[in-house]
């Protein structure tokens, strides 16, 4: 080993793939798991809940109130309290992030379904769609852009929020921050921030791409306007 601290590139080269749990590569995979699972999970949970809120309007007020509160709870204490239940596992990070995701996605689903123009819904009814089929074939597809916009927010903030898990030893790339804090050294911080932002942007880009593929009618509209 040379004397004095390594350059950022040396540091990356040394730590990229050491085969140990805290190699950058492993942290990256952990980070991905801990952010992707909540994104998907929150979507899966928010869809039926959102639908329920649309179906039974009275549900929406309390649900959105609750979600407002959830959103106001800092992630850190939740992580800490959950440790005693779920232990030192990724679940501890995944659960709260899933709830944050729901807090964004439930309103998105409700708004998305609300964005279906009334005359479109009416004509679907008039053409003899059954309620379920109307939901699947007409209302949900039209809601996609709004839901995806919500999902983009969820994806980006999940990816960045995972890092707080480092304070309980489960932060994916966030552990680069705690490590660099305990043993003051800038490269890990830079690498951590850059990788997290990059991940977020890639996820965002993929969602934009998904939106283009799923909703050609929206893209075309922008193209002309």
């Amino acid at each position, binding site marked *: 080993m040379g004397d004095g601290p390594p350059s950022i590139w040396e540091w990356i080269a040394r730590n990229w793939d050491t085969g140990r749990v805290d190699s950058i590569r492993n942290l990256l995979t952990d980070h991905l798991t801990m952010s992707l699972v909540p994104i998907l999970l929150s979507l899966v949970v928010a869809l039926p809940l959102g639908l329920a809120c649309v179906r039974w309007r009275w549900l929406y007020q309390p649900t959105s109130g609750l979600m407002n509160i959830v959103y106001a709870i800092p992630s850190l204490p939740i992580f800490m309290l959950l440790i005693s239940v779920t232990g030192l596992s990724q679940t501890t990070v995944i659960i709260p992030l899933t709830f944050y995701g729901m807090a964004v996605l439930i309103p998105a689903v409700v708004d998305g379904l609300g964005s279906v*123009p009334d*005359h*479109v819904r*009416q*004509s*679907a*009814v*008039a*053409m*003899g*769609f*059954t309620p379920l*089929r109307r939901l699947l074939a*007409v209302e949900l*597809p*039209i809601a*996609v852009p709004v839901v995806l916009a919500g999902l983009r927010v969820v994806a980006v903030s999940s990816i960045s929020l995972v890092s707080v898990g480092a304070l309980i030893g489960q932060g994916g790339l966030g552990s680069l921050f705690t490590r660099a804090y305990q043993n003051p050294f800038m490269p890990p911080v830079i690498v951590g921030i850059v990788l997290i932002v990059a991940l977020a942007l890639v996820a965002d880009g993929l969602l934009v791409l998904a939106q283009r593929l799923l*909703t*050609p*009618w929206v893209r*075309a*509209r922008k193209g*002309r306007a």
Partner: protein
Amino acid sequence: MITFDAVTKRYPDGTVAVDGLSLEAPTGEITVFVGPSGCGKTTSLRMINRMIDATEGQILLDGVPVQGIDPPTLRRGIGYVIQQAGLFPHRRIVDNVATVPYLLGWDRRKARARAMELLERVGLDSALARRYPFQLSGGQQQRVGVARALAADPPVLLMDEPFSAVDPVVRTSLQDELLRLQAELNKTIVFVTHDIDEAIKLGDRVAVLRVGGRLAQLADPKTLLSDPADDFVREFLGRDRGIRRLQFVSTAGLRLRTDLTVEEGFGGGTAEPWALVVSADGAPVGWVADARPDVLEPFGTFVHGRDSMRSALDAALLSPSGCAVGVDENGKVVGVATREALDEALAEAADG
């Protein structure tokens, strides 16, 4: 035939939107519901395909009460066209049109072929089929709406102010299109509008409703104009009732004089005060007064036999000669209707 039998609709908040409505919309005819805003037109229409259920009374479709039919099934057999067209923004035009065939489980290929055929029928270029609704103008969207309603060839068509969101020029062409289509298809159409001109133009029978959902008058347009049942209907029909009535008077019986035309280069000297100069190919050029044979005065034309007396009168009023020029479909002069001839025809019409 659609029969309203003492139908009443009371909304949960107590509003009586339709009150004891009884009428028939005969098979193969266009029945128009017209009336001021809030008079229950939409409600009445929607009770037919059970988007709204009647509170009292019943609606029969060829004698069968609609209450007995499962709503989605009922609706697939009834075309429905509304103001904003209600096209599905996420589906291409062709798939929009094929919606009901798909629902009915038609083969995809067959459904699309049917859709393409219909697009053509409503006067849309087949190149539009692969577009999305927002890429079409309002008028084009409305046409798609009509095509979609016709896709499964339903015997009944419900139309709720289908043309009220487009500008007047497009509106007129859509109305003409509908009349042309109906001449081919002979659907049973119930058409809602708040525009009395539209009602008169399109309706075989016009039902005027008053607020509260009561029927004020049900008659063919001509009767409506000449014999309004009461002040409400008279008021609703508005001004120009007399002139508009002429729309239903054909010019076929209008006596034309053929001795008032002269060729171009005419130098003056007939016994009549006015003569119509006609070009070599038979087109009208202008009126000349006997006194000033070198000045061409404006003229107005009507297609004899096709246009109504309203056009003929208008043509006469456009010219200082007071005479209307009758032409054929190709614009060739067939004769001149003098003021006397017009008076005669109008008097006859007023009597009838």
